[in-house]
């Protein structure tokens, strides 16, 4: 096999795979345990939705561990899933920020209050349950009258088996929390209540001394201490089998709800569905027109090689789109702009090569030799110039990731992928196509085909 033909098979395979991936309404790939959905991921600016950037609400020099951020991310993800948004994205951006994207969500107020809501802490009356009964309830979910009071009316019979406990008060009454050790060096969580909370607590503990008061976080019983004496000073402590760490965790949860790090919203963006759809349609049209004009120009100016470059350009578009769907790259408006722009850049390598080829032809070289020289001499320029574009893409991507600026990230990623794919299609594929043609047509008789 000739040197110039060894790429035919890989190119054909690439073309087939790309076309396969680009099939509309793709069923996805399911081979044994391997599952992959394939579809074009559209960004918020194209489908509409709510995006929010949350930041740790702590002093700038406070240390935030990555585990805490991960936990916070997971909790927010759970809450977001509760909203019923499909394909929501919850990502950590930088050291202290979390990016939340809710495609299709229209009401930013509702979305954000769900995300920001701290977990619900309740002090629950366990009444006369025995120690053994209580120990069975620890770390399980229970029903309380505080939570069910709002939606109890209609669904009467369903949960009649499960007991509903009485909520004495909620975490809203807590003013301060801390961790100390008692006389036996056992860890305990101490808390101070608001004046109203102190009053409720005083009355309750006075009337119920000796009974169990459970501490319930998001329906889960985390501790169930016995009231040993009336608590009148508005201060209390929770003891259990705490380690230093678990005591700290509980105190953080009491302070901020279940989120290990308090978060505030520093940036939001909401895009209405009409604007998104409109933008998508328009940029698709712009892309097709841009591609057609570039192809026409190449064919008119460079004749036969130009038409071959056009074929390579189509291959380029197919492969890049297939990559977007496979990875998957979320397509945003600037991302599409980056892709359309990269069509113009993708032919740059061809322009460089063809200009070189023409020079070599004019210098009296044979067509075969001119092609070979054109490629070899244009290569350093192609390599160096594309590397500099890639350097900018990397820096843009880094900038976008730190700030959850997904538009910047999307643009740099699509541009970088475009540059890499175009290196293959414009250099290797064009060359292979051209040689394939030369082997079958006696072009030497028609130098006009090369625009010379």
């Amino acid at each position, binding site marked *: 096999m000739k040197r110039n033909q060894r790429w035919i098979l890989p190119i054909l395979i690439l073309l087939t795979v790309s076309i396969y991936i680009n099939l509309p309404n793709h069923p996805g790939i399911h081979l044994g345990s391997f599952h992959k959905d394939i579809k074009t991921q559209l960004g918020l600016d194209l489908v509409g939705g709510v995006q929010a950037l949350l930041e740790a609400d702590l002093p700038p020099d406070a240390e935030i561990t990555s585990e805490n951020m991960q936990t916070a991310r997971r909790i927010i993800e759970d809450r977001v899933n509760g909203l019923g948004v499909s394909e929501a994205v919850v990502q950590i951006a930088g050291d202290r920020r979390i990016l939340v994207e809710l495609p299709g969500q229209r009401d930013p107020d509702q979305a954000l*209050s769900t995300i920001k809501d701290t977990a619900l802490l309740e002090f629950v009356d366990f009444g006369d349950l025995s120690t053994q009964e209580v120990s069975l309830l620890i770390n399980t979910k229970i029903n309380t009258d505080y939570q069910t009071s709002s939606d109890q009316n209609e669904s009467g019979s369903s949960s009649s088996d499960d007991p509903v406990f009485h909520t004495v008060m909620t975490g809203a009454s807590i003013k301060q929390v801390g961790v100390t050790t008692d006389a036996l060096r056992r860890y305990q969580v101490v808390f101070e209540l608001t004046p109203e909370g102190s009053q409720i607590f005083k009355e309750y503990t006075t009337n119920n001394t000796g009974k169990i008061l459970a501490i319930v976080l998001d329906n889960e019983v985390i501790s169930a201490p016995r009231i040993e004496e009336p608590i009148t000073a508005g201060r209390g402590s929770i003891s259990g089998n705490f380690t230093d760490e678990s005591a700290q965790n509980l105190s953080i949860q009491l302070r901020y709800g279940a989120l290990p790090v308090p978060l505030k919203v*520093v940036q939001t963006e909401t895009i209405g569905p009409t604007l998104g759809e409109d933008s998508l349609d328009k940029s698709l049209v*712009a892309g097709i027109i841009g591609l057609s004009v570039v192809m026409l120009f190449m064919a008119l100016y460079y004749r036969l090689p130009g038409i071959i470059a056009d074929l390579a350009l189509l291959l380029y578009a197919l492969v890049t789109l297939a990559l977007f769907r496979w990875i998957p790259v979320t397509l945003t408006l600037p991302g599409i702009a980056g892709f359309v722009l990269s069509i*113009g850049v993708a032919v740059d390598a061809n322009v460089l090569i063809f200009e070189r080829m023409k020079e070599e032809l004019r210098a009296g070289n044979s067509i075969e030799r001119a092609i070979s020289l054109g490629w070899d001499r244009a290569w350093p320029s192609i390599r160096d110039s594309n*590397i*500099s574009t890639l350097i900018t893409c990397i820096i843009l991507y880094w*900038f976008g990731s730190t700030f959850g600026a997904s538009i910047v990230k999307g643009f740099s990623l699509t541009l970088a992928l475009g540059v890499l794919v175009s290196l293959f299609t414009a250099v290797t594929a064009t060359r292979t196509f051209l040689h394939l043609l030369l082997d079958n047509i006696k072009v030497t008789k028609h130098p006009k085909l090369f625009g010379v």
Partner: protein
Amino acid sequence: MINIVKHRYLYFAISLIVILPGIAALMVWGLPAGIDFSGGSLLEIRFNSALPETEPVLDTLSGFGFSDAKIQTAGSDKLIIRTKVMDEGTLASVLTEIETEFKADIELDRFESVGPSIGKEVALRAAGAVGLAALGILLYITYAFRGVKHAFRYGVAAILAMLHDVVLVLGVEAMLGHFLGWEADSLFLTALLTIIGFSVHDSIVVFDRIRENERIYRKKPYETIVNMSIVQTLARSINTQLTVMFTLLSLVIFGGSTIRHFVLILLIGVFSGTYSSIFNASPILVVWENKEWKTWFKRSPA
């Protein structure tokens, strides 16, 4: 052969004439920072019923404490409102108020809100990103041209040409900001960084030809070699410029309004990038080779 290098000072002068008004605009009016950098909120409201006058809408906003709000109309059915940071709860009340007060059927097309502290940090990092990109490219060029005499000069010349484009685009943005109310947001920054990449891309193609020609024509003066290289790559520079312009123009004309600003800035920057790589970057190498600055301030013999 066309002699571009010979008239280099003419081309430098053209660059200056184009850039200076922009620099003046930058100094007088400054860069119009969008909410991405300055903090604040932006509302884009589409009216399915008649578009109200801006004055009464401003009054409504003042009622919510946003007396310094700025309102622009966009197209025939949209209002773009910029305020200091507005939270989501207030947003809902503002929208309801506008609906009842103007008996309007409205749709929220876009709402953006950026806290002031993050805005500042973004602006700082953005400047850092531009600096880092310049440094990365300078290092790469110095490395890529390591076999050539004065490799460092090529890096500096490419960076100077790049600065030409950056300053030009910043100046244009300052003017557009003053006259048309455009704002520099993170998309503008993206455009700027892309322009940097392109500008250097173009310069490298010419430098590469100089590198090659220097090896072939050892006897010829540097000036001739540089000019020859520019002319040999001229067709490529123009054609690539054309293909990129075709795609960008199609985005300007047929693409949505959301990215029009971004694409226009790219168009200006890419054009400037091609100009600077042909008429500035390589001629700077000649100026440097001849150390011409020694004679700049001397009176020419009469």
